[in-house]
């Protein structure tokens, strides 16, 4: 089915969802790691609009934006396991929650991680509010789409690893079993899927990175987020 390359960083959760999708579909691919402080000319050529990763390159043609990439993978390697359900309403629902994760849940979590003091408390309220919607959506289901995992599990999969590692790094707890029983159960089950279990970035390296983000290097991102936050 042609040559596949994935431009990614080692730590990004958005890259991971593409890795999972490719592995679950049994697609062979080559990984090219990008250093975002020193972007390759290839990346700038393949994603001139955003200059971001992940970028999937299929037969020399780039596809950008992780949710767009996920749907592309699902539609291109369309025999065997399908990520999105067939029913149009179920598909619309999955897309809605995916957008909610990318535009609300994840950014609010990132803000919570990067802020301090009173700002952090406010940010925590927001991320908890967002997660409560997700918790409700999971009610009575083993995975987001039902008995079998799919698109939305790949999208929310970052929850299985990142909040826990951040807690280890800077003692910032988020997901409480009492407040989020559905999410915690789902995290265990989805976290047990071999492809998911075997692809997390190195924990020590992540902890080190999160420390650095909170200290000196993080101030730029913190300031930028504070200015942009609504």
């Amino acid at each position: 089915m042609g040559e596949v390359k994935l431009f990614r960083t080692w730590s990004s959760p958005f890259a991971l969802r593409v890795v999972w999708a490719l592995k679950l579909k049994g697609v062979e691919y080559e990984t090219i790691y990008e250093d975002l402080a020193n972007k390759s000319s290839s990346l700038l050529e393949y994603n001139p609009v955003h200059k971001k990763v992940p970028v999937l390159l299929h037969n020399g043609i780039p596809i950008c934006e992780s949710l767009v990439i996920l749907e592309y993978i699902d539609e291109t390697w369309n025999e065997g396991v399908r990520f999105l359900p067939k029913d149009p309403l179920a598909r619309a629902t999955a897309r809605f929650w995916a957008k909610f994760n990318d535009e609300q849940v994840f950014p609010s979590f990132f803000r919570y991680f990067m802020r301090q003091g009173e700002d952090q408390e406010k940010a925590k309220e927001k991320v908890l509010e967002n997660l409560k919607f997700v918790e409700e959506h999971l009610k009575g289901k083993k995975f987001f789409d039902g008995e079998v995992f799919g698109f939305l599990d790949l999208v929310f999969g970052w929850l299985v690893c990142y909040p826990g590692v951040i807690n280890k790094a800077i003692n910032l707890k988020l997901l409480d079993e009492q407040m989020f029983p559905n999410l915690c159960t789902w995290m265990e089950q989805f976290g047990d899927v071999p492809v998911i279990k075997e692809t997390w970035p190195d924990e020590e390296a992540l902890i080190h990175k999160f420390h650095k983000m909170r200290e000196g290097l993080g101030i730029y991102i913190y300031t930028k987020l504070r200015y942009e936050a609504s």
Partner: protein
Amino acid sequence: MAKKSEIKLIGTVASPFVNRVQFVLNLKSIEYEYIEENLACKSELLLTSNPVHKKVPVLIHANKPPICESLIIIEYLDEIKPDVHRILPSDPLERADNRFWANYIDNKFFPLYEEMRVTPGKEGKDAIKKRIIEGSVLLEEAFIKFSRGKTYFGGDDVGYLDVVLGCFIAWTKFTEKNNEFKVFDEVRTPRLVEWVKRIWSHEAVKDVIPGNEVLVNFYMMLQKYRPPRAV
């Protein structure tokens, strides 16, 4: 007794995201009941249909759970009535390309208009004008790529990106007038200038586009509830 429409659309006439859904409903000849929402005083129906965002548009199809987010609604309509005026192409790569540009338009380009509104001072506004102009050049290039020499992004007739970008035309003209500059310009983006005229007069579009008075009222509401930043 008139048959009640199976499809209801909750919207507000000034919202380009609502207009976009209306374009697609018209293109696909789907009958619908339109429910106008007052965003300054949101109805029970809206709050229960879209509890997460409390925003329009919301599409309700028969007794099924509501569908929110305009791009998601458009894909849903395309999937339930694929044989009438197909909106998205069927090839996965073309679909990915279309979706990428829809993301760009919604998340990078159009928010600049609001950014312009809330940014105080000439210097600030000029910086945003520059970004809008840069964006317009990207969109002109995208138009060349997608249209392949034809008259719409979708080729011979209106397609996904025509609908995705086309809904912003009224607000584009409003922003241009308010800020004395051109978003789309005969020298910089000649094809898009022609495209705007074509879309503006398209059968499925022309009766949906809000008039200036509607935009002015909405603008005044924004100025009141989300005032510009202090200098």
